[in-house]
């Protein structure tokens, strides 16, 4: 089954994926700054950030109202809004869109919650295929070590408490993240992830990402946005 729609726009879409504590946000932030300095028009889209959906998600989480299906659907709604109103227009305009998490996050998390694998793959069929998808591969203990203790208390859904894996929130989080990790690992081939060894130094990971980006972008000379002259002319006709 074809997973996503191919990107027919001049812009490029770069996504980072991985479990919590894999360091992906740090890396995409460094990469986007680097691209900006090289002259690209870079924009950013974060998982779960649509203004149309925010209140609904907040209500559902606060009152613990979600089932695996409604949890999956509200995240797809959030994603759809960002795609329709932000990502696609920016790709058309020739921007480099960096996304911290993409549909793969739903594929991993929702399946762990018991949602049917092919149902959730179909749900995101309207998504645009990324130009590059980086997966930050990290052993569970390393990721947990980076997260636990070093930040605020874990939240109910984040720790997978709705699955009844354990009454201890930290233990639940461990089991939940472990299962998500397995889902990610099984997607590497299918989705064509560029695997980054997230146990290496931050600098070494960034170097590897930049190498892959340069290879992908080839000799495109950034002039702000990519390939806009042609398209604007076409729309003006």
């Amino acid at each position, binding site marked *: 089954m074809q997973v996503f729609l191919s990107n027919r726009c001049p812009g490029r879409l770069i996504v980072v994926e991985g479990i919590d504590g894999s360091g992906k946000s740090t890396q995409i932030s460094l990469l986007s700054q680097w691209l900006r300095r090289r002259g690209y028009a870079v924009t950013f889209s974060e998982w779960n950030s*649509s203004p*149309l*959906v925010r*209140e*609904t998600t907040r*209500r*559902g989480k606060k009152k613990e*109202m*979600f*089932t*695996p*299906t*409604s949890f999956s*659907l*509200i995240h*797809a*709604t959030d994603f*759809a*809004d960002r*795609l*329709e*109103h932000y990502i696609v227009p920016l790709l058309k305009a020739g921007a480099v869109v960096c996304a911290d998490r993409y549909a793969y996050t739903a594929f991993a998390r929702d399946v762990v*919650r*018991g*949602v*049917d694998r*092919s*149902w959730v793959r*179909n*749900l995101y*069929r*309207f998504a645009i295929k990324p130009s590059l998808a980086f997966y930050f591969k990290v052993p569970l203990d390393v990721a947990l070590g980076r997260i636990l203790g070093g930040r605020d208390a874990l939240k109910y859904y984040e720790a997978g408490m709705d699955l009844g894996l354990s009454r201890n929130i930290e233990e639940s989080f461990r089991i939940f993240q472990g299962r998500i990790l397995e889902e990610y690992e099984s997607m590497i081939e299918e989705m064509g992830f560029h695997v980054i060894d997230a146990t290496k130094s931050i600098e070494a990971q960034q170097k590897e990402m930049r190498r892959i980006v340069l290879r992908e972008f080839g000799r495109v000379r950034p002039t702000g946005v990519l390939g806009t002259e042609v398209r604007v002319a076409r729309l003006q006709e």
Partner: protein
Amino acid sequence: MRDYKSRPPLSYYRTALPGLDYSELQGKLIVIEGPDAVGRSTQVRRLKPWLEEFGHAVLDTGMARSALAGKGIKEAKAGNTLGPITMTLYYATDFADRLENEIIPALRAGFVVLTDRYIFSIMARAIARGENRTWIERTAGFALVPHAVFYMRAEVKDLISRVVVGRGAFDYWESGLDLHYGKDMYESFVRYQSSLIQVFDDMADPYGFQVINASQPVDRVFESLQTAISKIVETEAPAKPRARSKTALPGPRVARLLKIK
């Protein structure tokens, strides 16, 4: 189009809901579908007390009424950035919440569930907006198969007169104004509702809709629905000669039993 007619009631169309024991379900699930302004809500409002007269507990539900997403959908529709895929999925979220938290518990308890619209309106709106049919069919495929889907069918001209007489103005979303179809709301309404009716017509056979002629007067539509529902839920068929009272409720036999005039 894939054929769903043979799916037994209270099973799923394509994908099982995680964690649901389908064998626990009883009750009856009755769907009233059709385009905007066709008179669905009026009929549901009359069917509920009619069924209750026969001792059935009735849950009535409808689009955008979920505790989870109802408010969010209303707010999103009041703004000016709601895209077609987002709208479809927002409604699907609302539907999932009502299905799992209202409809299924009611069925488990043996209720008659009357629902004003179901997945078919969500699907029709998506398809009329050019979204992929298979995508939305699969997405909505976790829905329970109802005991009956009554498709209230009317022509666009009937809908127009209902809108003009009943509401006095065209609505942005009912006119599909987001599709930039015509010069004004009237033209847009005609084109959008025509394509919705076409999509409903196409779904009628594969999903086994029972078509109700909704161009008839309200009382006649009500009688058609009563007759059809009597085959699913234990009731006394509407007695003849037909009730002529303004509300047609309760039916004459019930009125006699209750000693009211």
